[in-house]
């Protein structure tokens, strides 16, 4: 057990979780006190001692599934879920029972296992299990579906995403959802559901389908662990912490996750900045206040008073490239900047592809920056000729229309990868802006190694920027914006 735990802790550290030695010891101590056959209890015990931030939960859960699945699987006994699955399945008729048995058989070949059950029957069973929210039957169906559709090949160093995709594609869950909704409609008391009821039913079924999807995922992962061992698999499925996800290459799911992380992140940042402003260093001696104070001590200035420094809030110009390759990065940055806009005297934002448009108006009077960011994609007028990034034209347009509004209180942030499709660079604009503005920053979402390769001309712009910052992850972005205010 201790060996397993050490391996697990090592894996957590590799995923980027800061697990200290004391925490490791605590975990070892905690494990002594809980019944080992209770897998859920083990999970929470480890989580309580090893994971100290809710953002790290996902990485922890992934590692846990991998490391502690193999024990429950090969030991056979003690896996409550599996046992329950069999019992439930048996009570639910012969077919499901068979499905459960085959799951136990753990056959790798798709062909041999599903016999006696046609795809239609399997779909019917899935439908039934979802309709009745029968977890045991769901697990049995998941096992059977993986047998039949995943087509897993032993020994391949993969994380199982493709197997999951293949299984779910064959089951066609969208159609199942529709069918479930149809069933709900037909079963309604008054003939039809009201819209509220319909919505509630839909949410309920979606939650059940999500549960089923997770059952399939667990099943696939369990088999992969058996095939290749926990440590090898852990390497393939390791998930980065939300702060460390590369924004430019994030999957859909990861983007959603980033989106959820962004809100608490920006709130924390705002609190921190507000505190920093209030508790800043002491300013110069306030002579008048000191003299006034000294009257109470007979004119002896015992207690000197200091002026509170009130650093001017900067005015921010955000100029963001929203062409396909860097769009999500621009969205996150705009979102973050507006979420803490109280820390700036004014934020003005401009987006471009090859044309440029001011989008400040979208953010005015909007409570949730995400809403405004969504509108930008639909309404901003950023196409000039062909919809490929042209930094030179966009920048010179910016200079022509708004350049004279940049002054010594302004900080200019340009967001983009500086991949200019071999157009003219227009770097004279930045040179001019640098002369006018307090600071000019360039935020590049590409890894530093790629800068200057191909059609990237970030080096040419860098000459006229106060700093060029690599901003691939939320962590880097937060760091930069935090220093800005």
């Amino acid at each position, binding site marked *: 057990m201790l060996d397993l735990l050490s391996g697990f802790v090592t894996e957590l550290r590799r995923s980027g979780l*800061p697990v*200290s030695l*004391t*925490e490791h010891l*605590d975990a070892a*101590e*905690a494990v002594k*006190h*809980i*019944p080992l056959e*209770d897998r*859920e*209890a083990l999970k*929470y*015990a480890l*989580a*309580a*001692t090893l*994971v*100290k*931030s*809710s953002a790290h*939960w996902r990485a922890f859960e992934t590692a846990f599934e991998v490391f502690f699945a193999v024990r429950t699987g090969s030991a056979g006994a003690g896996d409550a879920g599996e046992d329950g699955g069999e019992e439930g399945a048996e009570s639910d008729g012969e077919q499901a029972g068979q499905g459960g048995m085959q799951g136990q058989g753990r056959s790798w070949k798709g062909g041999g296992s599903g016999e006696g059950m046609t795809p239609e029957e399997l779909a019917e069973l899935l439908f039934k299990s979802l309709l009745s929210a029968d977890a045991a039957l769901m697990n049995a169906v998941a096992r059977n579906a993986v047998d039949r559709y995943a087509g897993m090949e032993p020994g391949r160093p993969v994380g199982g995403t493709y197997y999951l995709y293949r299984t779910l594609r064959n089951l066609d869950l969208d159609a199942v959802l529709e069918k479930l909704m149809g069933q709900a409609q037909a079963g309604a008391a008054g003939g039809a559901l*009201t*819209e*509220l009821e319909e*919505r*509630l039913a839909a*949410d*309920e079924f979606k*939650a059940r389908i999500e549960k089923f999807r997770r059952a399939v995922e667990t099943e696939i992962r369990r088999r992969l662990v058996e095939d290749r061992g926990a440590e090898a698999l852990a390497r393939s499925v390791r998930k980065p912490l939300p702060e460390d996800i590369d924004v430019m290459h994030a999957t859909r799911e990861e983007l959603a996750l980033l989106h959820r992380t962004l809100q*608490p992140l920006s*709130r*924390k940042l705002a*609190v*921190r900045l507000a*505190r920093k402003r209030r*508790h800043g260093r002491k300013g110069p001696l306030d002579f008048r206040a000191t003299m006034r104070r000294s009257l109470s001590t007979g004119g002896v200035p015992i207690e000197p008073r200091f002026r509170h420094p009130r650093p001017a809030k900067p005015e921010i110009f955000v100029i963001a490239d929203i062409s396909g390759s860097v769009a999500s990065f621009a969205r996150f940055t705009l979102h973050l900047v507006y979420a803490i806009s109280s820390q700036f005297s004014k934020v003005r934002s401009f987006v471009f592809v090859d044309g440029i448009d001011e989008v400040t108006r979208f953010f005015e009077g909007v*409570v*949730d920056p*995400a809403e405004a960011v969504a509108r930008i994609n639909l309404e901003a007028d950023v196409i000039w000729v062909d919809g490929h990034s042209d930094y030179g034209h966009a920048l010179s347009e910016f200079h022509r229309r708004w350049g004279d509004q940049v002054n010594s209180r302004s900080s200019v942030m340009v967001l983009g990868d500086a991949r200019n499709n071999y157009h003219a660079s227009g770097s004279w604009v930045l040179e001019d802006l640098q002369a006018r503005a307090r600071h000019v920053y360039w935020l590049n979402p590409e890894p530093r190694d790629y800068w200057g390769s191909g059609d990237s001309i970030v080096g040419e712009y860098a000459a006229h920027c106060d700093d060029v910052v690599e901003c691939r992850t939320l962590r880097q972005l937060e760091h930069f914006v935090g220093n800005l205010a």
Partner: protein
Amino acid sequence: MSEGNAALGLPESGPPRFESLDAVRGGLARVGYLADDSISGVVFLADRLAKPVLVEGPAGTGKTQLAKSVADLTGARLIRLQCYEGLDESKALYEWNYRKQLLRIQAGEHGKAEEEGPSWSELEEDIFSEDFLLTRPLLEAIRATEPVVLLVDEVDRVELETEALLLEILSEYQVSIPELGTVRATQLPMVFLTSNNTRELSEALKRRCLYLHVDYPDLDREREIVRAKVPGISEELADQVARIVRSLRTLELRKAPSVSETLDWARTLVLLGVETIDAAGAKETLHILLKYQADIERATKELLSASSN
């Protein structure tokens, strides 16, 4: 466990408060707190490992209530330290009763006129004794002889530097007072810290605690909570309430409805004599669940649009 404590110089932890995981869960349910696996598991471990629990999660998910319920369950006194910006040692730990000390000195001087008063060293020893010590929540929890539960509420509100005050008490269950020496706990209090996550707590603090993230409950648990906390609610209505709230939480709202708001809503519905919720009824009472106009509008649009057209 207790031998280990003795070796480490920690106070005896005494017999464990809870027999098993199930005992925790059952006990909490008895005092009206419906815990899920993770909550009861962490409370159980906190007792066995004698470690504080750091509870984090969105507002209104029962973080503070958890500490109160545990106090209820174990029959312990609840000592609460509400944190705020600017909290310092004299408010959290202890303070010398300055006025009383002054009086003592003056009394000594008066006595001097007739006979020889106490010498300075005697006096000093005297005024820095326990009689002149004002205990604040943290010290009180340590010195209590009866079982106590210490609740440090909203610990994320204090500054990073002030957090350090807590470290000694959290890991060693002791407080060092320069004039008196170290005060050790006679019994180990159960400690709960809550945080709304407005800032990152320091590593040092986190390391000393068990971490518990309390999120919004799932459908079944929320329904049970509603049924347990709202007397006179029908099963059907409780189910509907829980389901609507779950759907609301999937929307992107500024402030998702919390458990306490769900309960308020359910109580209102019961008071109004509502049997089943229809769109119009929900719309009229939605302001109890949602506190921003923009949220209400969005929820109406997404969920309840049937009644408007």
